[in-house]
């Protein structure tokens, strides 16, 4: 009963939020509405709730609930966004509770009209909004105290969840009833850098205690009375459909409840996962494999090579590259190959759906709750506000849970709709690995002309690979045929400003394999090409690899600061231990500037040991410095999986990998013995940190391998390449 009431009030809250939020860059509730919201809200013990904006609420019991417009998927925003509010609100930590916000317009991204966690943007995009949310609440509480005590606002201070005035200390909870009736001033002053207690200094992760004792709830952990488990038998070839199926044996399995055909396969519902899996194994299905049956990685590579022989649509150009290549003193020509990649988050994809009359509830871990809400509503013939999305912790995402097509939510909603049951759909690891939405495969062809000083004067660069945006609601982002996510890191490379003639061309072949952004997106391949080529050019020039880059980056302050710091901390150019070799790389992405030095050795069998990765990052203000270090460590190890092992390949339309035994990912014994992260002391524009640690690692490692072996690496992954010295 209690729960139902809460749901009703939650809906009305969201309705208000949606109306006020849409179209506004900063979508606060206007305080005049706060009084009407006093009945609002779940689980808080206090009778009156003070909800000065969409991002926090304070109860009469002093409890402060902070609502996150973004999802916690490991990147630490559970803590960082809370720090922003706490620094302005003078809250007591023991009173703070954090929760994911529902899907609603009030929680749209500050830079785009949708609710999304991605692009490494959470911290910088929320820096003003979350601080202002905390500051406006604090001002209202101070105004309430002044009114209550009959003193001037200026006579009140705040500390640790209390307003201090004269000789009194009033807990916030005692002020919320009055505060809810007041109107905040239009201008909300924010604290200065000198006044910050948490920002720039840091805080331990607020989600960690529940992540060391099993209490943290991920999407897959959602439990409720009457909830059944659904699994899906998918076509062995992506895009295939069910021709016919025989479920007579499956139905005999104890615990199996219902079997239905859905657009993406056959769904089987059972009392628990194990029974569902036994049932799935007993299904006999005939498939229409569809046109993807001809997809083959080797054939595709030849197609890409043919395309790369022509220049492609211009993504960036300057001067006359053809002429300049003809008059260059030397040419360097290279082809690079990158396979499809699966995100392989630890938590396999899953989604729980309950349809009750004219309302649908969804529990899942998602980076795009609004898109998922819309997709579910479309299937059910509902309005979006009839669908509630409850975001639980994401057991990793890396872009896979930000699908504009909401594939796993759509599938679960179809199952719930077809069966009329309350279901939790769980994908097996095999479903997850073979389920598509991969980082596309890419081929780069580059011809570089150098002058007599061995500096590049002509750079012809052709990129071939599927567009991420084509066929999605983001398609409008493709301008003049160019999807920037295919060319980022090349077309906007800071090196190009020192090269008079260049042409960056793009081919975006249409292939029916569903593709998606993966942690650092286009930079996963472009940084490798640019930075291994820089190393090669430097080597051919006889110059040091850092010194060579410094010449090309001469007017770029932030790249140089990152490069110099990484080189200094790694002891670049200084004698190394016997048989140790270093490689360096720099890359800019998501507004941050990252340089890495990898130090390796190879034993006589060619077995690689990574002794140390030294990293420097300029991300502007580091709101939570240890969080920045953690994200860079994470990015480096994620990149190592890509560099050494990551490959999804196709034969007769079937994905050749299925689980961690053949889609290998980095293990602790293969991780660098040491990772050092240095943050450039910077007050420049803030950038992201979740992704920018990924791109420089693979080229830094490949450059170190060249230093050791004299061999250039032009194809990923290279973990099984014979690396003998």
């Amino acid at each position, binding site marked *: 009963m209690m729960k139902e009431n809460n749901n009703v009030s939650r809906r009305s809250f969201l309705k208000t939020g949606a109306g006020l939020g849409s179209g506004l860059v900063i979508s606060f509730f206007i305080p005049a509405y706060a009084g009407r919201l006093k009945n609002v809200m779940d689980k808080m013990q206090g009778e009156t709730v003070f909800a000065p904006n969409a991002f926090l609420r304070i109860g009469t019991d002093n409890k402060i609930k902070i609502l996150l417009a973004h999802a916690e*998927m*490991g*990147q630490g925003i559970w803590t960082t966004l809370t720090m922003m509010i706490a620094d302005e609100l003078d809250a007591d930590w023991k009173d703070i509770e954090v929760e994911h916000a529902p899907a609603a317009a009030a929680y749209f991204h500050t830079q785009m009209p949708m609710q999304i966690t991605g692009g490494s943007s959470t911290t910088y995009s929320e820096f003003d909004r979350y601080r202002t949310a905390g500051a406006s609440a604090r001002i209202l509480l101070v105004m309430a105290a002044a009114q209550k005590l009959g003193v001037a606002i200026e006579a009140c201070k705040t500390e640790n969840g209390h307003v201090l005035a004269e000789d009194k200390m009033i807990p916030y909870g005692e002020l919320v009833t009055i505060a809810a009736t007041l109107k905040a001033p239009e201008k909300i002053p924010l604290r200065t850098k000198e006044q910050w207690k948490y920002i720039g200094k840091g805080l*331990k*992760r607020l*989600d*960690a*205690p*529940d*992540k*060391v*004792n*099993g*209490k*943290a709830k*991920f999407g*897959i*952990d959602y*439990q409720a009375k009457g909830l059944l*488990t659904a699994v899906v038998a998918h076509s062995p070839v992506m895009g295939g459909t069910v021709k016919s199926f025989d479920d007579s044996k499956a139905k005999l399995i104890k615990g199996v409840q219902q079997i239905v055909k859905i657009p993406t396969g056959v769904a089987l519902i059972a*009392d*628990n*996962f*194990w029974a569902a899996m*036994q049932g799935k194994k007993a299904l006999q299905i005939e498939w229409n494999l569809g046109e993807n049956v001809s997809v083959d990685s080797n054939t595709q590579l030849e197609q890409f090579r043919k395309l790369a022989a022509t220049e492609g649509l211009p993504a960036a150009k300057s001067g006359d590259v053809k002429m300049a290549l003809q008059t260059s003193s030397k040419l360097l020509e290279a082809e690079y190959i990158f396979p499809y990649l699966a995100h392989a*988050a*630890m*938590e*396999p994809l899953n989604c729980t759906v309950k349809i009750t009359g004219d309302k649908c509830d969804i529990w899942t871990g998602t980076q795009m709750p609004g898109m998922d809400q819309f997709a579910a509503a479309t299937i059910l013939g509902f309005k979006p506000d009839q669908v509630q999305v409850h975001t639980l*912790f*994401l*057991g*990793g*995402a*890396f872009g896979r849970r930000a699908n504009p097509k909401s594939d796993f939510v759509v599938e679960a909603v179809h199952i719930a709709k077809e069966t009329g049951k309350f279901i939790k759909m*769980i994908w*097996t*690891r095999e479903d997850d690995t073979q389920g598509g939405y991969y980082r596309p495969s890419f081929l780069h062809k580059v011809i570089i002309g150098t002058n007599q000083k061995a500096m590049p004067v002509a750079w012809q660069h052709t990129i071939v690979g599927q567009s991420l945006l084509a066929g999605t609601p983001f398609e409008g982002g493709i301008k003049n045929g160019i999807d920037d996510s295919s060319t980022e890191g090349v077309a906007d490379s800071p090196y190009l400003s020192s090269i008079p003639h260049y042409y960056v061309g793009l081919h975006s072949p249409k292939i029916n394999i569903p593709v998606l952004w993966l942690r650092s997106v286009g930079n996963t391949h472009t940084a490798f090409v640019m930075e291994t080529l820089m190393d090669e050019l430097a080597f051919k020039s006889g110059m040091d690899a850092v010194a060579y880059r410094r010449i090309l980056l001469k007017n770029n302050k932030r790249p140089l600061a990152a490069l110099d710091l990484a080189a200094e901390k790694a002891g670049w150019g200084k004698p190394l231990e016997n048989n140790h070799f270093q490689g360096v790389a720099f890359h800019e992405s998501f507004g941050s500037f990252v340089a890495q030095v990898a130090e390796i050795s190879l034993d006589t069998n060619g077995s690689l040991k990574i002794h140390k990765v030294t990293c420097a990052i300029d991300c502007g203000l580091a709101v939570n410095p*240890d969080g920045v270090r*953690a994200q860079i*460590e*994470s*990015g*480096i*190890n*994620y990149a190592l*999986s890509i560099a050494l092992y990551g490959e999804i390949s196709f034969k007769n339309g079937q994905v050749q990998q299925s*689980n*961690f*035994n053949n889609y290998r*990912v*980095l*293990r*602790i*014994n293969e*991780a*660098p*013995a*040491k*990772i050092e992260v240095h943050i450039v002391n910077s007050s420049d524009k803030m950038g992201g940190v979740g992704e920018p640690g990924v791109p420089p690692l693979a080229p830094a490692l490949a450059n170190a391998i060249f230093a050791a072996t004299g061999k250039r690496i032009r194809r990923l992954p290279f973990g099984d390449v014979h690396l003998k010295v």
Partner: protein
Amino acid sequence: MIQLTVNKKKYELDVDPTMPLLWVIRDIIGLTGTKYGCGIAQCGACTIHLNGEAVRACVTPVSKAANQQITTIEGLSADNNHPVQQAWLLVDAPQCGYCQSGQIMSAVVLLKETLNPTDQNIDDAMAGNICRCGTYPRIRKAIHLAAQLTKEAGS
């Protein structure tokens, strides 16, 4: 009927004896701290203790655990005060956190067998536990710290 003891609590369950312990723990008993990651003993997210040994619950049939002591992450301590949990918190090891139950359960057994593990001992013992967030540097650090905390608590 199969009798199980999970976190010192006794259960009598009418389940398929071939059902892996993972699904008994998650779906029948309702403890969700033990995670499903791969189902083929490749990732370690489902690591639990069977009579004090680290085992992969996803490939251990429930019949094999009948009448034996099972400990899951929920049974490790009442209030996060196990030295391994403490160390995990002190170094802020978790990110997404999905693999950490399994990591911690493996680390507890390592430290029981090796009081002062070297990096090599850690790498050897923990190689079966995948972390896609790549928290490996902090896991190593936390295990060293837990060894120290255990020693301090004992002295």
